[in-house]
Each structure stands twice: as structure tokens, then as C-alpha cells.
């Protein structure tokens, strides 16, 4: 077996492609993604106008088989909507097992899908790959983290969903004082304010050293909604430069975990 696969840069197989499909769907707000296979796991990254960077990360233990050649970088650009379409090729009601092959630089990504309820049916997909664009390196170790917030994903989704759609900026105030989290939106003529104290049930952990006021485009924050819907826990981290990192954890039935991660750049104060 090793002889057969070692010629490939990357091979992986999975019993159920459903969760992977949902995970990729949740970051599919751009046409193309950067596909990166590392020894620890698989990561797909999309960027929205250099303002939002979203990644889906699937740790290697989610795969029944997972091989990446050590001596090469497995990094390429792929059309993520085509990829999700292929994963869902048997329809939403049919779960299928999945195999992925990537032979070498420039070759297409091969997908072999087999529906679970039908035998002798198999789909081969070849998706063309491109040379990866450079992606923003947003994580800066020198900038200190000022606040970290762990929330229940469903409750946070309820809050975000209730915000007025017509306004475009959202202001998040974090403070060690009560109310610890305050989310303000400005509508056409009205102002709405949501206060969440750290004692609230939806807040699982809260740490904030100094009061901070952050402004983002509401549209950017709304991009996490699909990921929130499939996740159980959400972590918000804010650095002193205003960069917001949102990490979401998806727990599968087999206790394995998949993650999505969003970096959102702040709006500059005028």
C-alpha cells in the first residue's frame, strides 16, 4: 500500500464526507480557497478583500488514512464551490465515503466518492488546481492579546441574528467592569445596545485586562453565521491592535473535532 501511495504528494480517506462538506460550506463566501495539507491536518483558507480571512482546519485524526510527503509543500489553490459541489454530488440525504489524491504540483485533485447506501456506485472527480496566492499572515506574536471570550455558539448566533440588518458597523466594547461585553449597532436613526455580563450562562470564560472598544463591519462579522450554526463553542480573541480572531469548534458524533477560524480586521476610528 505504501508503495502505491508514496508517489502521491497527498492522499487521504474518510468514511463520511458530510461534516467536511458542512465545514467547507461555512467558509465558502469566496470562489477560491488555498488548500494546504500538513502533517497535523488539512487546512483551507479563503480571504475576503484582505479584511477577513477564514480557515477550515481538519486535524489528521478525522481521516481514516492520511499521508503527506514530508519533503514537499502541499499547497495549491482550488475552486471551493466546485469542491463542495463534488462532496455533495449524491445529494444532501446521502452520505458518502471519500478518498482524496493529489499526485504532484500542477496535477488535479482527485476525489473518489462512494455513497454509503448504494454499492457499486462510485464517482470520480478531478478538480483542477492552481498555484496558490500568498495569504495574509495576520497572526502577530508581538502584539499582546487583551481579551479572550469563550461563548456558547448557539446563544451567540441568536445575538448576531437579532442585530438589525440595515446597519453596517458594529461596535464591541469589552471591559473588566460590568457590563463586560456590550455590543452596539447604529441603525438609520436608532441605536441598539446588547449588554452581556460575564456571569451570563452563555459566557463560559471571560478575561479582559483593560477596557477596549472595537469597531467592525457587521457584514464581516455575519460571515461567521454559517460556521456558528454547526459549531458548539466559539472563542473570541482580541489583540491590542484591534484584530479579532474568532475560533469555532465543531464536535462530531465520534468525539473528533474540526475547527473554523476567522480573522477580522477592525474599522479604523475617524
Amino acid at each position: 500500500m505504501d508503495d502505491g501511495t508514496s508517489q502521491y504528494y497527498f492522499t487521504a480517506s474518510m468514511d463520511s464526507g458530510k461534516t467536511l462538506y458542512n465545514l467547507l460550506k461555512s467558509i465558502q463566501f469566496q470562489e477560491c480557497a488555498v488548500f494546504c495539507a500538513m502533517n497535523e491536518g488539512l487546512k483551507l483558507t479563503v480571504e475576503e478583500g484582505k479584511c477577513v480571512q477564514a480557515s477550515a482546519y481538519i486535524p489528521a485524526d478525522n481521516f481514516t488514512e492520511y499521508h503527506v510527503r514530508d519533503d514537499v509543500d502541499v499547497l495549491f489553490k482550488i475552486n471551493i464551490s466546485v469542491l463542495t459541489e463534488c462532496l455533495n454530488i449524491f445529494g444532501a440525504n446521502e452520505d458518502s465515503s471519500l478518498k482524496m489524491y493529489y499526485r504532484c504540483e500542477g496535477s488535479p485533485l482527485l476525489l473518489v466518492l462512494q455513497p454509503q447506501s448504494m454499492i457499486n456506485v462510485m464517482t470520480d472527480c478531478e478538480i483542477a488546481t492552481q498555484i496558490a496566492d500568498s495569504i495574509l499572515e495576520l497572526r502577530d506574536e508581538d502584539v499582546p492579546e487583551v481579551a479572550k471570550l469563550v461563548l456558547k455558539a448557539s446563544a451567540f448566533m441568536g445575538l448576531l441574528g437579532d442585530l438589525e440588518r440595515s446597519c453596517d458597523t458594529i461596535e464591541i466594547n469589552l471591559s473588566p467592569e460590568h457590563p463586560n461585553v456590550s455590543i452596539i449597532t447604529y441603525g438609520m436613526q436608532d441605536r441598539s445596545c446588547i449588554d452581556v455580563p460575564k456571569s451570563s450562562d452563555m459566557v463560559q470564560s471571560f478575561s479582559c485586562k483593560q477596557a477596549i472598544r472595537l469597531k467592525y463591519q457587521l457584514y464581516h462579522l455575519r460571515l461567521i453565521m454559517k460556521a456558528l450554526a454547526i459549531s458548539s463553542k466559539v472563542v473570541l480573541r482580541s489583540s491590542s491592535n484591534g484584530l479579532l480572531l474568532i475560533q469555532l469548534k465543531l464536535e462530531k458524533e465520534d468525539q473528533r473535532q474540526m475547527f473554523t477560524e476567522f480573522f477580522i480586521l477592525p474599522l479604523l476610528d475617524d
Partner: protein
Amino acid sequence: MKCHVPGPNVKVLARTVHALARFGDDLYLESLSDCILLRTLNASESAYAMVKLNKNFFSHFNHNYYCVDVEGLKCKISMKSALNAFKSPAHMDKQVENLEIKLDPHSSKLIFQLNCKHGIVKTHYVSILDCKAMQAVYTKDLVPNRITSSQRLLSEALGNFQCSDDQVTLEVTSESLIIKNFGDTPTDISRIIRSQVTIKPFEFSSYTIGTDTNITFTLKEFRALLGFAEGLNLPVQLHFEITGKPAVFVVHNGTTIEAHFVLATSKPDIGTQYTSQHTTNSERKRKENSNDNNISAKKVHLDEDLSNQFQEDSNLFNYIPNNMSQNNVRENINNVEKANSIDTNCDNIPASPTSRMRIASVFKRCFESTFDPRIIHGVVLAENSDSD
């Protein structure tokens, strides 16, 4: 004014706001010493709604919270803002523990503060657009025709009508009530499905008809008020007189909440449905080159009818200054403006002319079946546009 609405009543209030939102674009709030009144009027001023929330609707009610000697605090806010504060009424009682409403006469904001589960506090600062109140004068007690019905009976009856229908006609006699989506005039061929539902008096909780009549009113508002009654599980009382006089729908539970929905009525087969749908239809017919003369003659007659009716209707919603309201006739619905009296009398505003008729007569020759474009040898003033 400051008041607290307990959790279960927040849902009722949310349903109220959503029902009012289907009537008008502005919400008028007036606080009196023992109740709060919410009112709205639709854009064409043919439908008005008033909901009275009594003192015991609230767990705490302080009319004189900010200052003592105010008669009635009034404000007008945009309905969109109100809806924003009351999203998803169905789930509201699960999330919201109580609601605090604050209205300071010296502030420009009306404050809705929702205390939710998990210790979350949502505060909406809603801009006050105006400090006027709006009030309609109508009668509901001294009318010959009264019907009380469970909302389910009427909802089920309306279930038989199409979404595209925008008016219904109620034909009442002491033997039966007929709800239908068409009138007696045969000219209206635009309606493809004609529906008619007959309900016998014993189906209603009470049924008193003093004068046989038929009234036509808009379905959109009727559906909205039935939805409101359904949400609160309360019966609907209908008080009305004759064609042209407003019909008043009353939904109340006797203690905490009382809602009046007033709909202008007209003769069957005229109004928006006729004008909107028939226009397209007549255009189509013109393309088919059928002889239009006969039909347009009928239309002229109907249009006159229509404009007369509009004049009658405009009587229903007259804006009159505050000091005149006392001697006003009871059945008229007036807009009472306290701060600024408007002296204009709407009685003489004619219905806007319908351009459709003129076009038909200006280009009449072109649409006759005997017309041959080759016989015109004049200068081409406007060439045919590209087929693209």
C-alpha cells in the same frame, strides 16, 4: 412614563406591534394616566388600528415618572424601529424576562429595554419622529349590524381565497353571511378564480343584522387582524353599518388589552384590485386589436363610479383641526393633530385621473381591427424602436 411589561405580555405586545406593522408605517404611542394607546394608519388612510393596553397589562406602570403634570405623553416612531425591538414574537417569551419602556417628554428617544435570559440586556433607543397623536373618530356601538365570531371560523373561510386577492366583499342578510372575492358587475374579467363562502348565522357566537348590506374591504388588513386575534386566541367582533361606512373589528380580552381595527368599506369591484389588474389586462387586449369601444365605454362609467366612491371614501379619513373634533359627525374618522392644526379640507380633492382612458382614445385608431399602417404616408415622427 415608565412601565414594565412582564414576560408573557411581551409576546402579546410583540404580536400587537407585528399586527400594526401590517397596517401602517408609523406607530403612534400615547401614554395616559391609566393606559397606553398604540395607533397606526395605513398610507392610503383606509385602515386604522388602535390597541389599548390597560394599566394591569403592566407589572409596573408609572405615568408620572419623569414629570408630574402631563396630560398625555405622545410620540410617533417609525414602525421599522418598533419591529426591530420586537423581533420574532413567537420566541420572545422564551428569551425575554421583562421589558421596560421609558418615555421622557424631554428626550428625543423612546427606550425599550429587554431583560433577557442569561442576564443579557438589550436596549433599543428609538428616535421619536414627532410628538403628535393621531386619533380616529368612529362609532362601534350604535350600529345595526354586529357579528361576533371565533377567529378560527373567519380564518378558515379566508383560507379559501387566493393570495393575489386583495379585497373581499361581505354580503350580509339575517339568513346568511357570504364572503366573496368578486362583485356583481360582470365587467371584471381579470379575476380568474371566483370564490364565495357562505356561513350560516348559527356558526357565529352572536349574529345581529339590522340592515341587509354588502361591504367590501381590503384583505391584507383583514388577514392581519385575524392573525392578531389568532395569536391571542380571542374572538373577533365586527360592527358595521352599510356600504361606504367604516367597519370596526374589535378584539379584546376584557381586562388588559382592547384592539380596534377600522377598515374603510366600498362598493364591490372597485378599488386597487380593479385599477392595478385591469390595466394590464386592457393593455393586453389592445395588443390583440380587439374592438375596445364597448368595453371602454363601460370603463368610463365605472371610473366615474370609482372617483365618486373615492370622494366618499376621503370623507372617512378627514384631517381636521383639533377644535373641530367635538362637533364632527360620528362616523367620520379624523386625524386630530394637537400641535399643529391643518386647515385643509380634503372634501374637494378629486380622484386622480386615470391615464389609461386617454391613451386608449388618443391612439384609438391604431387599435382598431381595420387599421392598416400602410395607409399612413406621412412623416415618421418617431421610428419603431429596435426589435431588441
